[in-house]
């Protein structure tokens, strides 16, 4: 669950919103959508709050070796 990427979480959230606004769900399903959706939102918010940019630097490469 925590391994879900932000992109996946957003996509899932969007599909839940769509399903809910279409209005064909039973009350039980609608409530489950709501519950899952809120959990997703909290999950995303946590990710956004904690995130820190990771930077990986490749070493410089000499191009004069004539590998062309």
């Amino acid at each position: 669950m925590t391994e879900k990427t932000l992109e996946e979480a957003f996509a899932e959230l969007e599909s839940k919103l769509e399903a809910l606004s279409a209005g064909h769900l039973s009350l039980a399903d609608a409530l489950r959508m709501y519950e899952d959706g809120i959990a997703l939102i909290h999950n995303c918010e946590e990710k956004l709050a904690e995130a820190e940019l990771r930077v990986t630097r490749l070493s410089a490469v000499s191009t004069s070796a004539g590998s062309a």
Partner: protein
Amino acid sequence: MAIETQASSLDPRDALTVSELLAALRFTVSRHPAFSNILVRGEVADLSRPPSGVMYFNLADASSQISCVLFRSAVPSVRFELRDGIEVLAEGDVDVFPAKGQVQFIVRSLSPIGRGAYWLSFEQVRDRLAAEGLFDASRKRPLPRFPQVIGLVASEAGAAMHDVLAVLGRRYPLAEVLVSPCLVQGAEAPASIEVALDRIAGVVDVAVVARGGGSLDDLWCFNDERVARAIARFPAPVVSAIGHETDVTIADFVADVRAPTPSAAAELVSPAREDLRRFLGMAEKRLTSGVRDQINAMQRQLESLSIPFRPESVVRLVRAQRQRLKSLEWSVEREARQFLAALQGCLRAAAARLDAVSPMATIARGFAIVSRRDGSLVDRIGTIAPGETISILVSDGTIEGTVRTTERRTP
């Protein structure tokens, strides 16, 4: 001197053959330092390129011209497309071509000169790549919405790299940035940029090629055909940000998106954290209103039921329930569990109240809430089978039971 004296004697036996004359000329010219390893500037005229691969042309100025040959071995050193009218600098040796008695300039290397030299090579590379379709709009790829790995091709020492990392850190710290350093000016730069791009091909979701402002000379490597081709073959979208907004390089033409500055490029490849938060807030509201709409629909259904003793209390109850949900809608921080509990409380109260109204005693049983083990509601015969365990929620508690039989009501 000796030749002159002999010629004036008019004795044919003393005459030179033409071949001897040309050989002597050739010998003299080829040995003379003034004609070897020299630079000549002039305008190209009468260019011809026979299938042998040799290039012939004349170098001319206003009043003179000399025929020139560029042998096949020297052709690859010409980095631009030779054509008539171009002013060039030719390096080579003067020679005499005995078969035609002609003075020739054997060109070893050739480069465009004059004010337009840069732009000439720029236009030629641009036109060639355009003809191949490398700038076509149909080739432009959309940028990923949530890139996980962002490639950054820039000078390790430059401000461009600093700017891009600063913007990404502020806007979208969820990504990993893979920095692939390269030279961004000088003769080695094109090959260096090409290698830096190729190294991260297939590993990143999007790449930014960035360089801070500089002179035309400084930025020139981004007009190199090798750089353009490395961008074109890159498997992920490439955003170019070379120099200032007014600087346009061939790298910009071939990139999927051109950004006016390195900071702008960083913004293009990253969603803003604030926008994401706004989306989440909006999603929360929509979820809540979605559930509320569901409750409203149920209320309408209830209201439309034509029960002989339709009690106002039932309608009031549902209204209260709706009010409660409305207030929940705005308290976005509340947990879903609380919401569920509140709703269940409402339903429980509704069942209790229904029970309490004596003429409704029989109906009250119909409003008990029957659910399966997993909590899903049993609202139709078809949703439950004999033998399944059910839970019946009544006004003051829960009844567990097992379904014996089901029977569909005849209309």
